[in-house]
C-alpha cells in the first residue's frame, strides 16, 4: 500500500460501502489532488460535490434512458471535417463531441488547458454539410478542463436548452474523470455526478445515454444494479483513453462482458474509440450483435493522408498513403475509411454466424 492511501478517508473506512482494498490503489495524495484536477475525499468543497452528485447511491438517480436503432458503426467527425459532403451511403447516424459543439470552451494557459471565460454552444453546428439528412448523437466528452467547466457552468450558459436546439437524438452523460489510481471517493462522486447530469439533461428534453466507467467488480456491480433497476438499456463506454494498451482494453472488455451477462439480453453498448482490429475484438463474439462502434479514425486518417481498406485475407483494416489534393478527394478518403470499418465489422458478424451455424449443426 502506498503512503498516499494511509491518509485517504475511503481507505480508512469512513465511507461505508466503499471497498477498502480497491480504495487502497490510490496513487496520489488526496490532500492536494484538486490542484492537479482530481476529485478526492480531502477536497475543500467536498460537500458541494456530494450535493451535486446527490449522494453516492447510483440507484437513487432517475434516468429513463432511450432506445434507438443504431447502426453497427457511427462516424465521429471532427470540427475541421464538418464541411465535407459525404455520399448518402454513409451511415445515417453521426456522432459529435462536446468539444466540437462548444469550440471556445477551453484555451491553453501555463502549459495546460483552462476553461474559457464565455463558452457558447455553436447552435449552427448541426447544419454543417456533413450532418445534412443525418441523425446526431452527442458524446459529452472532451478535455477535463472543458467537461469540468461545463458541468460547473451548465446553468449559467443554459447548456441543456442550447444543446437541445441542435436536434440531438440523444446525448451521453458527461464524461467526468474516473481514473484508476484516483481517490475512490472522487471516482464514485464523478460517476454519480454524471448521472445527475443525465437526469437534468432528460428534464430539458434530451434523451440520455449513461456513460459508464467501471474499473473493479464493485463499480461494475453498482452499474449493473442501476441498469436493472432503471430499465436503461442503451449505454456508452468511452474507450479513447484505453486504446493505448492491451491491458487497458482488457478492463473495457471485462466491463462489457459483466454488464452483458448481468443486465440482460436487451442491453446495447456504444463503444466510443474502441480500436477496430481482430486482435482487440476477440472475445466479444457472444455480445457482438449488441455492440455499436463509433470513432473519429476515418477523419484523422484522411488528414494524415492514409487511405484505409478492409483486407479480407488478413481480416483487418489496412492502409496505403495518399494525400488528398482537394476537399472532394478528402471526402472520398473519409468514405473509404468508413466503408473499411463497416466491412470489418460485417466480417466479424459473418464469421460469428458461420461459427454459430457450425455449432448448431454439431449439436443436432
Amino acid at each position: 500500500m502506498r503512503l498516499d492511501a494511509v491518509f485517504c478517508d475511503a481507505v480508512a473506512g469512513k465511507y461505508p460501502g466503499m471497498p477498502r482494498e480497491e480504495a487502497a490503489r490510490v496513487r496520489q495524495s488526496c490532500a492536494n489532488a484538486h490542484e492537479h484536477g482530481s476529485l478526492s475525499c480531502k477536497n475543500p468543497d467536498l460537500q458541494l460535490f456530494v450535493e451535486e452528485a446527490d449522494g453516492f447511491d447510483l440507484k437513487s438517480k432517475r434516468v429513463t434512458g432511450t432506445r434507438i436503432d443504431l447502426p453497427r458503426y457511427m462516424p465521429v467527425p471532427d470540427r475541421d471535417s464538418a464541411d465535407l459532403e459525404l455520399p448518402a451511403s454513409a451511415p445515417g447516424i453521426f456522432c459529435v463531441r462536446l468539444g466540437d459543439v462548444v469550440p471556445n470552451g477551453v484555451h491553453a494557459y501555463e502549459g495546460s488547458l483552462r476553461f474559457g471565460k464565455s463558452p457558447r454552444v455553436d447552435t449552427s453546428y448541426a447544419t454543417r454539410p456533413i450532418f445534412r439528412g443525418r441523425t446526431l448523437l452527442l458524446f459529452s466528452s472532451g478535455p477535463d478542463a472543458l467537461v469540468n467547466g461545463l458541468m460547473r457552468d451548465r446553468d449559467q450558459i443554459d447548456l441543456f436548452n442550447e444543446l437541445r436546439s441542435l436536434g440531438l437524438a440523444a446525448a451521453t452523460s458527461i464524461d467526468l474523470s474516473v481514473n484508476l489510481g484516483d481517490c475512490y471517493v472522487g471516482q464514485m462522486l464523478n460517476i454519480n455526478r454524471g448521472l445527475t447530469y443525465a437526469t437534468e439533461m432528460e428534464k430539458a428534453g434530451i434523451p440520455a445515454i449513461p456513460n459508464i466507467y467501471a474499473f473493479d467488480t464493485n463499480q461494475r456491480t453498482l452499474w449493473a444494479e442501476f441498469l436493472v433497476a432503471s430499465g436503461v438499456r442503451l449505454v456508452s463506454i468511452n474507450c479513447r483513453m484505453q486504446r493505448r494498451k492491451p491491458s487497458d482494453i482488457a478492463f473495457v472488455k471485462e466491463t462489457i462482458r459483466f454488464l452483458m451477462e448481468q443486465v440482460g439480453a436487451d442491453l446495447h453498448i456504444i463503444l466510443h474509440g474502441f480500436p477496430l482490429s481482430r486482435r482487440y475484438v476477440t472475445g466479444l463474439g457472444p455480445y457482438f450483435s449488441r455492440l455499436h462502434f463509433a470513432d473519429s479514425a476515418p477523419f484523422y486518417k484522411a488528414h494524415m493522408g492514409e487511405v484505409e481498406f478492409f483486407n479480407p485475407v488478413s481480416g483487418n483494416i489496412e492502409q496505403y498513403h495518399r494525400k488528398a489534393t482537394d476537399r472532394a478527394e478528402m471526402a472520398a478518403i473519409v468514405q473509404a475509411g468508413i466503408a473499411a470499418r463497416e466491412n470489418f465489422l460485417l466480417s466479424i458478424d459473418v464469421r460469428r454466424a458461420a461459427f454459430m451455424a457450425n455449432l448448431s449443426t454439431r449439436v443436432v
Partner: protein
Amino acid sequence: MGSSSGSGKKNDKGPLLSPRVRVKGSGSGAGGATGGTVERERPETVCLTSFEVDLQQLPILKPRLPLTLKGGQVLLSGTVVGTLGARRRAMVEHCEELGVKYRGTVERRKQIYYGLFRKY
C-alpha cells in the same frame, strides 16, 4: 475522461472546478430558470502553484537565496532584483486577498539566474 492506467492526460487538466453553490429553485430543466447560482472563488482556480520571474543578472545573485515580493517588485535582502509583469502582479495581489502567499528563491538555469516563487 477516464483511464485505467494513470490519471488521464495530464495537460488536459487544470485545477478542479468546484460546483457553484446552488440557491433554491435554480437549475435548468425544460424552460427552467437559469442563473441562481454563485461561484465561490477558490485560490486553487486562480493562484498558480509556482511561477518564474526574470531577474537582473547582478553579482549579488546566488542560487537558493531567498526572494520576497513587495509592490510588484522582487527583492533580495532589500535590493530590487526584478519586477513582476502587470498580469502576474495582479494575480499575486488577488491571491494575497484569498490568503495565498508566495515565497521565492534564486535559481540558475544555463548560467542565467531567475526567481522561482511557490505558494506556501
